[in-house]
């Protein structure tokens, strides 16, 4: 296992590089997190909401037609797209929302890129009766107008960020700035396994329901563990969530898929922090960062807004360094092909983020025998992307 040490480090990655105003709020959060994790009533309320509200367990689906069309190993999908709000993000926001209630915070803030985490947080706020404000880059707000509408409909205040590259990284910075001024009353509900300690550990704990369920389902339905587990990596929460359960299964190969955008070798045209980044510090953690030689954070680009982030959760940097997980890139074109392919072969329209994982799974399947099992995290549904394309956005 690779949990964080007491200072929030996974190997050399992680930590808490934040302005002094945020140190005490993070310590308070850390203490509350440990208390909640040790409290059975917390988990029972969490489990109840995951079942009755989110609709868990999410299905495990053997994608026979996709497997045949890829022409090789058996591809199995963990269907986070079936969750309420359509992605894995809600597993995390409900956990953090319950923690916010325990901490008697009266307001939640969040950053969002694709809008999925924003919608999940707005949803959780409505469910638990906590007012929510969501920061979103102006560029993303334009690309994800459906999710912006949904957040407002759910009662959240949407704050459009015009600074920097006007995408997820800037929305995240803005959320941290808000929190610096409001931490007494406000819970910052971060959307992935990124940020300063204890966030990567906190988010991981709520994401790992994906892997825990999938591992048990594989054993029950297939009578065995998968040979491969594949997940896309933006900040890295769905990937950590599914990997967590398999880290100890040394025969199971783990694959993280980064967004290669217009190509891994086109600087500022991809979002492959692990494959093309260098060690740096962003949003409170030491991790792999896409940046120039002077430490200025680079612009990124991916067709999947949820992967369009220049850093990655520190645990992934560690899993890369340790060699336990192999990271690969899938570009826009390949992701779009997988998006249509899964729709046509199985009637499942995946999020473009998830389509990156599907694309790699098909690649893996091609060369392998039918009795090898490839488990893929289908982290979300693609309605948000279909809405963009239905509006005529080119793809």
């Amino acid at each position, binding site marked *: 296992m690779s949990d964080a040490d007491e*200072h929030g480090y996974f190997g050399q990655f992680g*930590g*808490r*590089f*934040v*302005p*002094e*105003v945020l*140190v*005490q*709020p993070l*310590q308070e959060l850390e203490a509350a997190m440990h208390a909640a994790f040790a409290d059975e009533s917390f988990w029972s309320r969490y489990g109840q909401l995951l079942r009755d509200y989110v609709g868990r367990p999410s299905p495990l689906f053997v994608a026979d037609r996709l497997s045949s069309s890829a022409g090789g190993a058996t591809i199995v999908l963990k269907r986070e797209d079936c969750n309420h709000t359509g992605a894995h993000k809600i597993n995390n926001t409900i956990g953090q929302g319950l923690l916010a209630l325990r901490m008697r915070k009266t307001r939640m803030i969040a950053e969002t890129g694709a809008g999925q985490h924003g919608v999940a947080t707005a949803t959780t706020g409505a469910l638990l009766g906590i007012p929510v404000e969501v920061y979103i880059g102006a560029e993303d707000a334009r690309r994800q107008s459906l999710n912006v509408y949904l957040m407002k409909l759910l009662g959240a205040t949407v704050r459009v960020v015009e*600074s*920097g590259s006007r995408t997820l*990284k*800037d929305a995240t*910075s803005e959320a*941290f*700035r808000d929190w*610096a*001024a*409001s*931490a*007494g009353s406000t819970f910052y509900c971060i959307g992935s396994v990124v940020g300063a300690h204890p966030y990567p550990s906190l988010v991981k704990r709520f994401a790992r329901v994906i892997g825990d369920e999938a591992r048990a389902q594989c054993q029950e339905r297939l009578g065995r563990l998968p040979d491969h587990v594949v997940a896309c990596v933006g900040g890295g929460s769905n990937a950590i969530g599914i990997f967590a359960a398999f880290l100890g299964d040394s025969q199971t190969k783990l694959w993280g898929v980064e967004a290669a955008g217009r190509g891994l070798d086109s600087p500022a045209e991809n979002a492959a922090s692990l494959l093309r980044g*260098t*060690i*740096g*510090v*962003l*949003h*409170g953690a*030491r991790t792999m*960062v896409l*940046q120039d*030689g*002077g*430490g*200025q*954070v680079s612009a990124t680009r991916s067709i999947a807004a949820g992967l369009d982030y220049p850093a990655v959760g520190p645990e992934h940097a560690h899993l890369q360094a340790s060699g336990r997980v192999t990271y690969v890139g899938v570009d826009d074109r390949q992701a779009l092909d997988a998006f249509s392919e899964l729709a046509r072969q199985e009637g499942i329209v995946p999020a473009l983020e998830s389509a990156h994982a599907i694309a790699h799974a098909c690649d893996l399947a091609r060369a392998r025998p039918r009795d090898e099992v490839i488990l893929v995290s289908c982290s979300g549904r693609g309605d948000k992307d279909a809405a963009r394309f239905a509006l005529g956005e080119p793809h």
Partner: protein
Amino acid sequence: MSRNLGAATISGVFDGCKSADRAAFVAYLMAGDPLPSTTAALIRAAIDGGADIVELGFPYSDPLADGPSIQAAATRALRAGTTFDSVLQIARSLPVPVPLVAFSYFNPLYVRGLERCARDLHQAGFAGAVIPDLPPEEGAEAVAVFASAGLALSFLVAPTTPAKRLSLIARVSTGFIYVVSRMGVTGSVTVIDRGTKALAQRLREQTDKALAVGFGISTPQQARMVATFADGVIVGSALVDLIASSPPDQALPAVRSYCARLSAACRRGADNA
């Protein structure tokens, strides 16, 4: 500590001000804003106006601790092509040595390498540095490296900093301690938080090091109030806004006269009530 020339220089300034019954006036400027070529003159104008110390900001793409004014200044500076090296160049180009403190986020320092940064800053004439997103728990290496390069390294305390950490920060800071006057990020406010004085007093019980208060101070009235309990008054966003809003040919006199008013407000004598 006595071998840390930078820390000694900075302490010297604070000592001098104390003898003159005034708080030190620390002026923050963003290097490269609006252009790398204008910064040296703006620094001189601030000094001419009475700045006792100049904090020089290294522009960064993701300035988490800064509000809109300084974010925008960093964006302008980066667009104008400002790099770490060009800030060093600006510092070296100043005709007379002034007490300069580097204000930089951690990542550019980390990526360049802390040892190399410390050496370069020292050679360019900086006396010390503030790294706003480096809490002391993550700062052990920086403390050692900067100290051995003869540079002060000032940490920040905030209204929420618990007592135990106050003493840690007091212990590891050199040059001065940066007292953040409120929760939040940089940027002008209308009222200085009432807790700031209490925070300075709590800190004073732990240390004799100079305490400079910043975040939000923009008017002579505010400076005057802060000067009654702090060793230094730091003004940043207001100065950056002034430069941004002045016509190019009037920025220098505007900075000079604004600094003069702030510097005057830092006097503690009966003439300044």
